[in-house]
C-alpha cells in the first residue's frame, strides 16, 4: 500500500501537459502522446463533419422517390465520399489514435509510447493522406463506392480514383505505425507490477486492434497500389479483358477491409469494458474471457472475408466455410456482451453520460451483430446482398457501436484529457437524443432493405418512401444530437468546472495522477500491486459510504 499512497497529488495542478509549453510550434513538433492524441482528436473531428455533410446530402436526396436534389452521377460521388471519409479517416483512427494514444501509456504506467517520434510521424502521414483525399474530392470526386471494385474503378470510372487511392495508401501507413507503436509499448513499457492480466481491458482490445492493423493494412496498401498501376498503365492484373481476375481484387480488398471492421469496433469494445466495470463499480465478470475474446475476434476476423463474395463466382464450398467462420465470430462477440451484462447484474450502476452510451452500445451492437448473421448465411445473403439491410447492419456496428463507444469514452476521459468537467445534464440529454435519432435513422432501413430497396441508387420506387422519410427524420435528430457535445466540449475547455484527479473515484492507473496529467504522466514510475477494476469489498463500502474506501486507496 506504500506505493499507492505516494500518488496523492495536489489539486488544481499548476503544470500539466497542456500548459507546459506554449505556441503553435510546441504542438506541431510535440512528441508527447497526449498532445498528439489531441491533434488527432481535432483532425478526426474535422473529417467526421465532412463525412457527416455527405451523409446529410444522401438523406436529403432520399427523402423523395425521384432523383430531384442530386443527379445520379453526383449521388454516386456523394455516397462514395461519405464512405471513404468515414471509414478511412474517421472510424479507423477514431478511438485508437485519440483515446488509445492518450491512455495506453497512462494505463500501463509508462511515460510515453515506445516511439514518440513515429507517433508524431503517423499524425503527419494521416494528415497528408487526408489532404490528398480532400484534393481528390475538390478536384472532381470519386464515384466507385468506397470498395473500388474492378474493373469499374480501373477501366470505366471517369473520376479521381488514383488520387483518392493514393490518399488511402498513404493514410494506411499512419495506421500501421500506430499499431506498431501500441504493440511495442504494451510489450516493453509496462510499469513494474503491471502484468498482462492486470492490464485494463482497454489495453487488451487495443492490442488485438493493433495486430489487425499491422497484419491487414499492408495488404490494402499493396492492393490500392496495384489498382493505381492498373488504371494508369493498363497492366491487366484485375482486368478480365487482359487475362486478369477482378475477383482477385475483391479478395485482396476484403482481406483487409473485413478485419478493418474489427479495427473499428474492437477499441470500442475496450472502452465499453472500462465503462461497464467502472460505472457499475464492480470487477468485470470473466476478465480473461473478455481479454481473450478480443484476440479471438482479431484472429477469426481474418478468416471471414469471403462472406463479402457470396454473390461472386467464389466456390460454393469456400462460401460454406466462410459462412461457418463468420458465424464463429459471433461467439467471442457474444462472450463480451454476456460478460458485460453479467457485470451489470446486482451492481451499483450510476447512470452518468458515459454509462448511457455504454448501455446504448450493448443494445445496438447486439442488433448489429445479430443482423450480421442473416448476411453470413449463404441463402439469405443472396436476397439481402446490396440492399439497405446491409447498410443498416453495418451502421449499427459502426455508428451504434464505434461512435457510441467513442463518445462514451470521450465523456468518460474528458476530465483527464482537458482537466474540466463537461455539463452532465446536457451530456445525458444528448446521449438520449443520439440514441433515439440513431434508431429512427437505421431501424426503418432494415425493413426497406428486406423488402428489396437496393443501396447506392438516388431514386427508388415510391412504396419505400415512408421508410426513407422516417430515416431522414432520424438522421436530422441524430445530427442535432451530435452538435450538442461538439458545442459543450469546446465550451467546457474554458468554462467547465475544474476536474479532480479522480472525478469518478476509480482504481485505474490513469486516475492516479493529476488532471490534466503532467508531460511525464506520473511524478514517479508507479508500482502496480492491484488488479484492474479492483474495487473495495461491499461491506466496507456500506460502512464508509459510497466512495469512501476507494478514495482512501487512492
Amino acid at each position, binding site marked *: 500500500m506504500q506505493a499507492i499512497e505516494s500518488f496523492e497529488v495536489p489539486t488544481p495542478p499548476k503544470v500539466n501537459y497542456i500548459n507546459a509549453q506554449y505556441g503553435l510550434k510546441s504542438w506541431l513538433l510535440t512528441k508527447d502522446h497526449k498532445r498528439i492524441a489531441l491533434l488527432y482528436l481535432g483532425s478526426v473531428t474535422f473529417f467526421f463533419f465532412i463525412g457527416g455533410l455527405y451523409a446529410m446530402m444522401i438523406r436529403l436526396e432520399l427523402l423523395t422517390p425521384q432523383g430531384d436534389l442530386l443527379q445520379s452521377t453526383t449521388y454516386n460521388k456523394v455516397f462514395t465520399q461519405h464512405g471513404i471519409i468515414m471509414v478511412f479517416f474517421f472510424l479507423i483512427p477514431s478511438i485508437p489514435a485519440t483515446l488509445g494514444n492518450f491512455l495506453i501509456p497512462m494505463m500501463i504506467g*509508462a*511515460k*510515453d*509510447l*515506445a*516511439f*514518440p517520434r513515429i507517433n508524431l510521424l503517423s499524425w503527419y502521414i494521416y494528415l497528408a493522406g487526408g489532404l490528398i483525399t480532400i484534393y481528390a474530392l475538390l478536384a472532381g470526386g470519386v464515384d466507385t463506392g468506397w470498395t473500388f471494385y474492378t474493373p469499374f474503378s480501373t477501366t470505366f470510372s471517369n473520376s479521381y480514383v488514383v488520387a483518392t487511392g493514393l490518399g488511402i495508401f498513404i493514410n494506411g501507413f499512419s495506421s*500501421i505505425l500506430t499499431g*506498431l*507503436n501500441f*504493440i*511495442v*509499448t504494451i*510489450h*516493453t*513499457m*509496462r510499469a*513494474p*507490477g503491471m*502484468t498482462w492480466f492486470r492490464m485494463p481491458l482497454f489495453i487488451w482490445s487495443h492490442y488485438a486492434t493493433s495486430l489487425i492493423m*499491422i*497484419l*491487414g*493494412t*499492408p*495488404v490494402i*496498401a*499493396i*492492393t490500392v497500389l*496495384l489498382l493505381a*498501376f492498373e488504371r*494508369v*498503365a*493498363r*497492366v*491487366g*492484373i484485375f482486368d478480365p479483358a*487482359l*487475362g*486478369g*481476375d477482378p475477383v*482477385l481484387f475483391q*479478395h*485482396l480488398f476484403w482481406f483487409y477491409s473485413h478485419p478493418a471492421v474489427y479495427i473499428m469496433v474492437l477499441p470500442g469494445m475496450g472502452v465499453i469494458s472500462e465503462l461497464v466495470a467502472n460505472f457499475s463499480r464492480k470487477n468485470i465478470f470473466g476478465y480473461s474471457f473478455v481479454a481473450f475474446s478480443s484476440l479471438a475476434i482479431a484472429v477469426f476476423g481474418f478468416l471471414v472475408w469471403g462472406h463479402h463474395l457470396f454473390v461472386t463466382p467464389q466456390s460454393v464450398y469456400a462460401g460454406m466455410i466462410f459462412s461457418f467462420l463468420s458465424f464463429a465470430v459471433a461467439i467471442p462477440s457474444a462472450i463480451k456482451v454476456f460478460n458485460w451484462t453479467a457485470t451489470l447484474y446486482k451492481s451499483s450502476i450510476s447512470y452518468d453520460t458515459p454509462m448511457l452510451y455504454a448501455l446504448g452500445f450493448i443494445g445496438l451492437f447486439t442488433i448489429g451483430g445479430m443482423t450480421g448473421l442473416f448476411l453470413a448465411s449463404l441463402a439469405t445473403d443472396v436476397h439481402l446482398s446490396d440492399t439497405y439491410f446491409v447498410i443498416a447492419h453495418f451502421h449499427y456496428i459502426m455508428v451504434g457501436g464505434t461512435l457510441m463507444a467513442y463518445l462514451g469514452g470521450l465523456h468518460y476521459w474528458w476530465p483527464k484529457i482537458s482537466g474540466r468537467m463537461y455539463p452532465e445534464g446536457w451530456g445525458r440529454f444528448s446521449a438520449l437524443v443520439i440514441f433515439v435519432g440513431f434508431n429512427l435513422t437505421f431501424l426503418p432501413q432494415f425493413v426497406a432493405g428486406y423488402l428489396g430497396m437496393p443501396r447506392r441508387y438516388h431514386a427508388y420506387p415510391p412504396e419505400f418512401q415512408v421508410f426513407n422519410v422516417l430515416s431522414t427524420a432520424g438522421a436530422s435528430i441524430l445530427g442535432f444530437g451530435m452538435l450538442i457535445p461538439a458545442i459543450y466540449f469546446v465550451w467546457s475547455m474554458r468554462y467547465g468546472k475544474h476536474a479532480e484527479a479522480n472525478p469518478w473515484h476509480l482504481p485505474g492507473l490513469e486516475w492516479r495522477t493529476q488532471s490534466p496529467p503532467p508531460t*511525464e504522466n506520473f511524478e*514517479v*514510475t508507479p*508500482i502496480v500491486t492491484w488488479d484492474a477494476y479492483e474495487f473495495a469489498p461491499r461491506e466496507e463500502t456500506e460502512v464508509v459510504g459510497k466512495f469512501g474506501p476507494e478514495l482512501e486507496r487512492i
Partner: protein
Amino acid sequence: MIEAHATTEDVHAHPALQHHFENMEQQREAGTLGMWVFLVTEIMFFGGMFLAYTLYRSLYPWAFASASNHLDITLGAVNTGVLILSSFTMAMAVYFTQIGKLRPQVWCLVLTLVLGLTFLGIKGVEYYDKYEDRLIPGYLIPSRPFGPAVQQEGQPFDEHKLHLLHGATVRQVEMFYWIYFAMTGMHALHMIIGAGLISFLIYFSLRGRYDPEYHSPVEVVGLYWHFVDIVWIFLFPLLYLLGRHLEHG
C-alpha cells in the same frame, strides 16, 4: 519479457538513452521488437503480390514457364550470391559493434553497402535488357508498350525473342512480367532504402556513436537487411527457375 525494470535511477545514464525509457536494455528491446513487428507488416505487404503470383501461375503455368525461361538466370544467380554475401557482412557488422571493434565494423558496413549497390546495378542491367526486348508490361513506359518479338516455329534461336511453350499467349506472358516487375521493383525499392540506412550507419559509426552498450540501430538495420535478402531468396526460384528443364537454354 520485461517484467521488472524498477530501477528508476541509473546512476550513469547512457547519453543515447531517451527520456521515456527506464534503461538501455528496455530501449534496445523496444527498438528490436519494433523492427520485428515492422517486418511482419512487410511480409503482409509482399504477401498480396505473392497471392497474385500464385493465382496467375496456376492459371497460366506455361506462360509463366516461358517467361521465366526468358529471364537471365546467370545475372539472377550472381545477384543471389551477392545478396547472401551482403547478409554475411551485415551480420559481421552487428557482431563487431557488439564487441566494440570500430574499424572492422565500419569496413563491414561499407562492404554491405557496396554489395547492395552491386545488386542494384545488376538489376538495372536486367531491367534494361527487358526494356530493349519490349517486355515492360502495359503502358508503364508510355512510348514503349509491351510488345515482345515472338520466336516462330523453325526459325533460328534468338535470345531476344520470346519462346512460347505449349500454347502460352503473349498476353499471359505480360501478366508474368507485370508480377515480375511489381515484385522485383518493390524489392529493389527496399534495397535502396536499406542502402540509405546503411549510409547513415556508416556516417554515425565513423563518429563512434555505437558501442557495446548502444548498438541497437546497427542491429535493427541488420534485421531489415536480412529481411530484404530473404524476400529475394523467395523471389529468385519463383521467378527465375520455372520450367528451365523444358528448354536447353
